[in-house]
């Protein structure tokens, strides 16, 4: 799915967030079956930090506070770890500042954001912007955005969506997890998947989001029943 945007929608508890966490290797989950292949590589064999360095990025639904660590130190540590891994030169604080400032202004974030501690005292919207800032700094290849729209007002949603759209490349991909079509109006998915009880039950285009918007999940079920009957 290089160059594509996929969206996963589903009821609460259908397993959307679990899927995203399993992909990045969250220690709360143990994988008992199945496989995750990323660019021909078995992701499940890699430690979480190696998955991140391979380009997999999860925007957390509830980003973690790290008191005592400034945002700029956190971002620079993450970027330099990746650069070192790729055999690139690490950036000193001044160089990093030059690297991050344009990204910050794209996200309409103040420079004082960098000096604040990671997510500490951030509003819901600030946390989401901060996740996208990390995504931008790390230039991830597979961006998994878990409910990036929750808690955002319409202006913040537009800013975040514009930033995500601007970060898309031909060789990168985006996986959105959301409850609402609203987000998909701004970040247009190529494919929408409906998840139920941990499985993808339907895949299709924007029409799935329209059905959801009008008739809820019952609408999807009716559609499937109708399809089965027709077949």
């Amino acid at each position, binding site marked *: 799915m290089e160059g594509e945007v996929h969206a996963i929608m589903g009821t609460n508890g259908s397993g959307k967030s679990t899927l995203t966490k399993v992909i990045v290797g969250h220690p709360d989950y143990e994988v008992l079956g199945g496989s995750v292949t990323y660019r021909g590589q078995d992701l499940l064999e890699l430690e979480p930090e190696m998955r991140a360095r391979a380009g997999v990025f999860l925007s957390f639904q509830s980003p973690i506070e790290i008191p005592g660590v400034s945002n700029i130190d956190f971002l620079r540590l993450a970027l330099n770890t990746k650069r070192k891994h790729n055999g690139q030169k690490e950036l000193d604080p001044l160089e990093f500042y030059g690297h991050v400032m344009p990204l910050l202004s794209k996200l309409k974030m103040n420079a004082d954001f960098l000096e604040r501690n990671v997510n500490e005292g951030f509003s819901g919207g600030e946390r989401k912007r901060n996740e996208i800032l*990390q995504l931008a700094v790390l230039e991830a290849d597979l961006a998994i955005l878990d409910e990036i729209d929750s808690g955002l007002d319409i202006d913040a949603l537009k800013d975040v969506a514009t930033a995500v759209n601007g970060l898309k490349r031909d060789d990168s991909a985006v996986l959105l997890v959301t409850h609402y079509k609203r987000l998909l109006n701004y970040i247009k998915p190529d494919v929408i998947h409906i998840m139920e009880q941990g499985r993808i039950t339907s895949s299709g285009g924007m029409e799935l989001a329209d059905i959801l918007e009008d008739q809820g999940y019952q609408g999807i079920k009716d559609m499937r029943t109708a399809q089965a009957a027709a077949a």
Partner: protein
Amino acid sequence: MEALLSGRSCCLPGTSQRQEGTWTPAEDKWTQRLLTAFAQVRTVAAPGALQRMQDECTQALRTQRMPTTRNEEYRFTDVSRILQSTPQPASQSPAGLPEAVAAHKLEAAAVQLVVVDGVLNRELSRLGGLPEGVYVGSIGGAPASAAEHLGQQARTRGSPFALINGATAQDAVCIHVPAGMEVPQAVHVLYIATGDANAVTVSCPRLLAVLEERAYLEVLEEFSGAQAEQKYFTNAVAEFVVHQGASLVHKYVQLESNPGWHMKATLVSQAQGSRYALTEAMVGASLARHDLGVAQLGRKTETTMRSFILCGEGQLHDLHSKLRLHHPAGTANQLHKCIVAASSARGVFDGNVKVERAAQQTDAGQLSRNLLLAEKATVNVKPNLQIIADDVKCTHGCAVSDLQEDQLFYFRARGVDPKDARRVLVYSFGAEVTQHLKHPDLMARLEAAVTQTLGDIVAAAD
């Protein structure tokens, strides 16, 4: 008042008479040995306020027993090694002093008081550049309205060690800020213990700061040893009187030599609408304890207490804090963060916040977070809120853990090695408190001391 006290001091029995036995000895043998040793080195009559304090505390010590682990307050803090030592007054040996002072600069502009073994050293101090009317110096030259506060709080709310300090302090540093005056630079009080290779020397530094109405002061107490590997005992007391609408920013950094012992009392009284904010870091000394007592004496007072305590190999570090809220609409915020980094180390915290019946609309929060980085590392923590008023907002919490898994994972999810994440998280744990110290020179010294304690331990965890 001052004249009266001076007169009284002339009439009181001097040093020589005391030794002749007109004076009832203390029941506690160690206390008596200590008092006798200090009486022998006392050469000049103390200024009035100091003499009065010495007499009152000596009197109070007659029946005062020094604490053992049978006392609830000292249950986890065994001070017997201090009480078994042969106390000898520190001699203010000049060796290495200029170097020690040079190594403890703050920024160029700050006023610096250098207190050597409990006595203000004028030659080494820098007292210029203060606004007119602000007094900084020994208690002898202080305005009477400030000097009269010396010993008042410690007498009623101090620990036995604070009484010992009161009876034996050879000097007292006094800072007085008149009404409405703001001292723009921080006043840096640098305490240096000289130590002695052949004996355990004792020094009793004393500080009094009085802020009149609407005054502002930042005072920074830093404790250090002139020689890194010497065993000595620093027994310090600071009293702060914060009048109506005044603000005191207090920073206290304890970087004593590692074998040293350190007892400290901080007593604060806050009048209506005043603010007191403490940021402390306790890193040095093999045995250290801070008794912090704050009394809110008027409406709308604000108290902030932030403490970072690091216990390495063989260290026991104890914070006992008591905050009393007696009046409406006060706020109190306490953050205690303790890292115990070795099996042989122990951290102790007893934080009491008492919201009396009159203290309605109090907003109080207390949080204790403790990080145990080694097997058998120990903390004894007792954060406690006593709430008698019924219309208040109070929160408190306590956590004892290794590093938080979700924080570690957040780093890993961004590609950072677990060992780098661990190192950053351990350092940042304390930084939540220490970043409020704000002075880069001081923070660099603290960081060096923290690195020395943690360096091997964090590396070993890899």
